């Protein structure tokens, strides 16, 4: 399968030169056409920073890409002039962010904000308006023509996220990037939004990358999953492989910590706390919290163990591949 987006060894530092810390280290993942890649990991693990840097949406300073490559449909993203990349991304990539209220500009009407994307691609004003209304209908906003002139604050959280999705879909993108699109929403609304995204992806065949920290959500929509810990992808593979036959002890601990359907069965905590970014050194970042860790883990960076399309970075992987 041809990768739509391919991130390879991305390295990002945060902070003023001199006092910078590494937030993301050797981040790699890719997503192919029609595929949904879900990135999971604890808060602060670098899921958002990695993805948004790849999209060149974070400003320098404080964020700086210090290594690695990002390829979109085969073109090198990071070396492209910013203007050109923005234009390309504007046409080819749709993005949905976590907090729809702040992601929409409070002083412009939602319709205008949807239409603006089309206008950026040279669609005439009238046509853009019509398309925007159509898009609003598509994402399930009742009374779209009337609500075109409404402002973001006049919508509920779920509706705002639909508007964001309408903006993302406006250009008929080949890649959809969603950073925790449902975290701020209620389960019933979350179900609506996930359903909407799923339907769109099925229909358009676009690739999708979604960031979430909810393994259950991941299991519902992912084709493949990448698990991020301390700025690295520690495990990646097909959804079922990763969630039901994890290689990495971290993945397995995460699964054990997640509540299950069984009544009265308490989740198991992962000991310790997530690593401090400034303290990252050699060796496996998860070692201090890992039940399988050996002396080796603290010293040597873990090797990549693979089982077909399923891979992990670990000295003591759970199921050693045949």
């Amino acid at each position: 399968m041809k990768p739509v987006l391919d991130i390879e060894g991305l390295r990002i530092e945060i902070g003023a030169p001199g006092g910078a810390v590494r937030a993301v280290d050797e981040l790699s993942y890719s997503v192919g056409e029609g595929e949904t890649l879900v990135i999971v990991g604890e808060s602060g693990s670098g899921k958002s920073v990695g993805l948004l840097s790849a999209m060149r949406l974070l400003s320098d300073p404080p964020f700086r890409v210090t290594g690695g490559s990002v390829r979109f449909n085969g073109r090198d993203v990071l070396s492209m002039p910013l203007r050109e990349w923005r234009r390309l991304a504007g046409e080819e990539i749709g993005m949905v962010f976590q907090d729809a209220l702040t992601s929409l500009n409070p002083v412009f009407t939602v319709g205008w904000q949807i239409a603006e994307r089309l206008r950026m691609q040279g669609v005439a004003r009238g046509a853009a308006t019509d398309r925007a209304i159509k898009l609003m209908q598509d994402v399930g906003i009742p009374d779209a023509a009337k609500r075109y002139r409404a402002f973001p604050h006049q919508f509920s959280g779920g509706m705002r996220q639909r508007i964001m999705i309408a903006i993302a879909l406006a250009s008929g993108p080949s890649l959809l990037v969603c950073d925790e699109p449902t975290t701020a929403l209620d389960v019933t609304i979350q179900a609506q939004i996930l359903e909407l995204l799923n339907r769109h992806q099925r229909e358009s065949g676009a690739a999708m990358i979604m960031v979430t920290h909810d393994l259950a959500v991941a299991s519902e929509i992912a084709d493949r999953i990448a698990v991020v810990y301390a700025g690295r992808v520690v495990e990646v593979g097909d959804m079922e492989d990763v969630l039901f036959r994890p290689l990495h002890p971290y993945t397995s601990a995460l699964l054990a910590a997640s509540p299950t359907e069984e009544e009265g069965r308490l989740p198991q905590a992962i000991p310790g706390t997530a690593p401090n970014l400034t303290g990252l050194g050699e060796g496996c970042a998860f070692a201090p919290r890992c039940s399988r860790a050996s002396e080796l883990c603290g010293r040597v960076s873990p090797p990549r163990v693979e089982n077909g399309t399923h891979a992990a970075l670990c000295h003591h992987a759970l199921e050693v591949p045949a």
Partner: protein
Amino acid sequence: MNHANGDGMAPLLAARKLSKTFRIKERHGLKRFPVDIRAVEEVDLVVGRGEVLGIVGESGCGKTSLARTLLLLERASGGTIELGGRAVDPADRAQAAEYRRAVQMVFQDPYASVNPRMTVAEIVEEPLLLQRPELDRAARQRIVRERLEEVSLGEQYMGRRARGLSGGQLQRIGIARALAVDPSLLICDEPVSALDVSIQAQVLNLLADIRETRGLSMVFISHDLSVVRQVCDRVAVMYLGRIVETGPTGLVLRHPAHPYTQALVSSEPRLARKGAARERIILRGDPPGPSTKSEACVFQKRCWRSRQSCDRQPALETVEETHLAACHFPADSGR
């Protein structure tokens, strides 16, 4: 594990027709209108000794308002609260003080619920200072040390300030504080929703331990069904300020009778293999604003079963034994 009314004793805590209405002013351009937000509407609930009652519902349905009203942080607009069978008059200082010693709260946001300028010891000491004035400093320090121990924070934390601590640690401090005066009931308002899964598990385990060792009753508020499923004996489902369904956790979540509960349960994401297809009820639209006042069933607008008679708000009625639902057309119970 159901201790409710088991031995004929009065329940630990009961609320009867508890309501809380906020009056706010909405500005529309140059004009402002007073609007009534009916956050809690005629809620009846009972917590038995040693029992954990879960309250679930969507954001804004009134869970926190209910908790705050139960904690006397808000003055109820209607209804009564009973502790051990005796109605509590919040205006009576002595009664309120006694009630407050018995009922303590663990808050949702661990970062906001402790004063960033205070040391851990000061934070945990505060309820003692206010509620047990008879204790001297040494006695208080001893209790503080014990409680911190109980939430597995060592002595070395006592002098630290909140700003350097992680969310999980802070939430444990919040729990230690709530336990300081040996309450008989703990109200936990989404105690884990701000935490990462791994930390979430720590805190849930801690709460379970405490319940075990102390025989504590709890009101456990959450929007996360999977958490409720693991922690609670009974559950009450809230929608727009009302309890629409209540009963033993297993029963309610496995065989929901109210259409809203059904939708809620079916919307819950589950860790499942590909193709483990499940039937899913996707609700239309959003909940209406809490200020709308109407005679009709609160769920009518989003309900796929709604009919003529739904123009009236149904009362909570028995579906089966202790399983109640407020619906004109409840689904059959599982049994």
